[in-house]
């Protein structure tokens, strides 16, 4: 277990460039993220947000630069990283129970057939309870609401007791009440387990009260810092390369002149 303990930053990127099919996606990105930080990744579509997550998961390699995740180069199947990809619409008649979906997070990658195991069952129950979804355990996944499905994906990502949680647009397609519910849930879990979280969102407002720093990406470049340092007319105008106006009112940010 001691191998998991390290005192450096959770994520360290140095001069990272990524090209996908010769198209540059990340351009000289450097950043460090410390243990327990709650980071919101923002930016327009195609800015490289998902690419950054895939980079940390070891699914793609940078064309240059160095990456350290929890003190090591990224590698696929790292149990110290929990990942919930951008949520798709699940078919209503998908033949899978909530319990089965969450269970994938525990041993879905192992070869062979899984035998019934009370310890496995209680671990899944525990993860379901953590996201307040124990009563949904036996329900077919496709019957659940978007917010419920999102909670299950988070439970699945938590099953390996990760130190780092990567969540790609967990708030998309949720109404305000469910957004707040999911945000409160993620923040509570991250604090309780000292988990570092990187969360992609198009909207900072529902996350403002839990966010430590914002990583804003546009046109392959990025800026990182506290929300009111990064989400400013000056920084966003620089990132987008065109005039962007940020208005702060009622404790919320409103961005005018740019697609988020």
């Amino acid at each position, binding site marked *: 277990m001691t191998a998991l303990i390290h005192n450096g930053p959770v994520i360290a990127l140095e001069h990272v460039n990524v090209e996908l099919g010769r198209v540059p996606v990340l351009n000289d990105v450097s950043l460090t993220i410390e243990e327990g930080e709650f980071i919101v990744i923002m930016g327009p579509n195609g800015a490289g947000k998902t690419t950054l997550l895939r980079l940390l998961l070891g699914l793609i390699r940078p064309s240059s630069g160095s990456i350290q995740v929890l003190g090591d180069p990224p590698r696929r199947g790292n149990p110290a*990283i929990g990942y919930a990809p951008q949520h798709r619409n699940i078919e209503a008649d998908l033949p899978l129970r909530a319990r089965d979906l969450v269970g994938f997070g525990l041993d879905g990658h192992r070869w062979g057939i899984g035998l019934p195991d009370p310890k496995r069952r209680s671990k899944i129950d525990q993860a379901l309870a953590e996201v307040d979804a124990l009563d949904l355990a036996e329900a077919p996944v496709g019957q659940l609401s978007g917010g419920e499905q999102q909670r299950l994906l988070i439970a699945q990502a938590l099953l390996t007791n990760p130190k780092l949680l990567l969540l790609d647009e967990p708030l998309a397609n949720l*109404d305000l009440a469910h957004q707040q519910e999911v945000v409160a849930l993620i923040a509570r879990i991250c604090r309780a387990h000292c988990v570092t979280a990187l969360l992609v969102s198009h909207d900072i407002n529902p996350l403002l009260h839990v966010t430590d720093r914002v990583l804003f990406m546009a046109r392959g470049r990025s800026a990182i810092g506290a929300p009111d340092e990064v989400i400013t007319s000056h920084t966003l105008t620089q990132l987008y390369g065109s005039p962007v106006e940020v208005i702060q009112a009622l404790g919320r940010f409103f961005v005018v002149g740019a697609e988020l």
Partner: protein
Amino acid sequence: MFTLLQYPFIQNAFLAGSVVAVAAGLLGYFLVVRGLTFAGHALSNIGFAGAAGAVLAGVHPVYGLLAFTVGASLAISLLGKEIRQRDIAIGVVMTFSLGMGILFLSLYHGYAEQAYSILFGTILGISQADVLASAAFSLALIAILAVLARPLLFSSFDAEVAEARGVPVRLVGAAFLILTALAISMAVQVVGVLLIFALLVGPAATAIRLTARPVKAMALAVGLGLAYTWLGILLAANSTWPVSFFISMLSFGVYLPVRLLSRQGWTRELKAQPGTGLSQTQLVDQAEMIGLPEGKDKNPHG
């Protein structure tokens, strides 16, 4: 009726039918949940060309079946993930293969029975050697499927997370299609290439309408496949009608009421999901920018 069981050809039919039904039921479950049922159907039709070619060349049809179905399954696994494009490509190759098959048959000046049996199966004429071969084959298939089971299930339902968790998603998918090709080559003896859906997809499609639990659905698919096969053989042995007719009739006859009656609530509760997450998000963003309240709950419950 049960005195029939004394005849060796009936015993052979039962044994061969059973091993095929078990393998087909299990593989069929994954075909259905992976959305590959059309590929399964196409594989068997492509196999027809192979079988006809083998007959023309004077070898056992199963060799032609194996060569063509395995080749086609490799090609399908190289095709992209986009279902529409993939199915068009599969369909084009399938028709081409059927054309080849009919050419081979017209060039072959032997008994038309051969073609008939490839198309519709010859379970009552199966030899003991074929039974043993089918049993060994089926056991091997099930053993390999058991090894692949969890990663295959994971990647069938959530390929992206499975990949991130270290599952070799493409490799597992390709291995599964090759297993399907092998199972089809075997199942053709029982129901023929045209009726393969009856044992491969019918039981699994019915099973997933009855349960959302993967293990239970697989067991149910196997049970239904066995029931169709046994009943089909018994009914055929007591009539002049072909076995494969009874099997396909049973498969359809069970699927239809299950489809109509099961999970009615599910279709009623059709969720008003937005077309794409992207446009919805942008709409919400714009609404926020101009100070509109956000959209109402898009979901009737939860």
